[in-house]
């Protein structure tokens, strides 16, 4: 459907609608609104699907990295034990080089331990964005609801229906505001420590 203003309207600059024209315009607006709503629904669904896939992929990658890290840590531990056991029989130069290697790997493991925690921060951030998207999707669908009835005609809720709609929209907004922001970190720098 053409979402741009009708060219003749743009040229005239004014709307002088007959009853028939008015009905036609209303039908066009309703069709446009329905199309945009459907487009929004699809976009929200696509964004949520993307988030879910990002969550799965990063979790799987982090899980594999953790396994690799565990093996590396085990190797460092074994190397430390071997160095201790064979210190007296090993050439001093070789022992020194292997000791330096073990220290370097130990230092690297500290960095890896800090860095792998990205998965937890990332997962929480994705959950938060997902919750906001769900809220926005729900809200946008409800926001457009009063202007189109089930038959695609213009609707005008009143009384109890209007109150119910207001409550639904208010609840939707409140739910959006209550989505927890559990991750404020902007980097992987280690956080504060506080003993009570």
């Amino acid at each position: 459907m053409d979402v741009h203003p009708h060219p003749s309207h743009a040229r005239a600059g004014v709307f002088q609608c007959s009853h028939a024209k008015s009905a036609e315009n209303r039908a066009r607006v309703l069709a446009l609104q329905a199309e945009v709503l459907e487009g929004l629904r699809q976009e929200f669904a696509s964004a949520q699907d993307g988030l879910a896939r990002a969550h799965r992929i990063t979790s799987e990658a982090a899980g594999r990295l953790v396994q690799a890290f565990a093996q590396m840590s085990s190797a460092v531990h074994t190397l430390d034990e071997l160095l201790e056991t064979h210190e007296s029989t090993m050439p001093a130069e070789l022992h020194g080089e292997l000791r330096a290697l073990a220290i370097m790997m130990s230092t690297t493991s500290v960095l890896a331990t800090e860095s792998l925690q990205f998965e937890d921060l990332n997962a929480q951030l994705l959950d938060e964005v997902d919750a906001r998207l769900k809220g926005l999707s729900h809200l946008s669908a409800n926001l457009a609801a009063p202007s189109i009835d089930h038959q695609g005609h213009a609707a005008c809720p009143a009384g109890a229906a209007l109150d119910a709609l207001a409550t639904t929209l208010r609840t939707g907004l409140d739910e959006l505001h209550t989505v927890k922001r559990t991750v404020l970190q902007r980097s992987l720098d280690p956080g504060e420590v506080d003993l009570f």
Partner: protein
Amino acid sequence: MAHVKTALVVDDSSVMREMVAQTLRKAGFELKLGANGQEGLDRLAGTAVDLIVTDVYMPVMDGITFVKAVRSRPEGRKVPILILTTETKPEIKQQGKAAGASGWIVKPFNPDMLLQVVAKLLP
């Protein structure tokens, strides 16, 4: 024979559980693991631990509720409990302190720093 210290690590992130567990294993701890507060309580049933490290935001039972539950048990009154969380808001930290936590560490943690804190709590 020397007493082997045991730690309970509770976090819904398997990566975090493993990172904390590996750090504590290097310091000689035996580990019990749980994915939420309720699992943490289940792991504690009938056994004593020397240290607990728990997250705050978890499904089923959150960390603050878990700390309160541990403190309500006779065997859990004195065990050091470290909260390890992304949360930085002072009011939530206060809730953890009021629940009975011994300390608050903001993620990501540095393994050397964690072991220093543990050494202070378990001389």
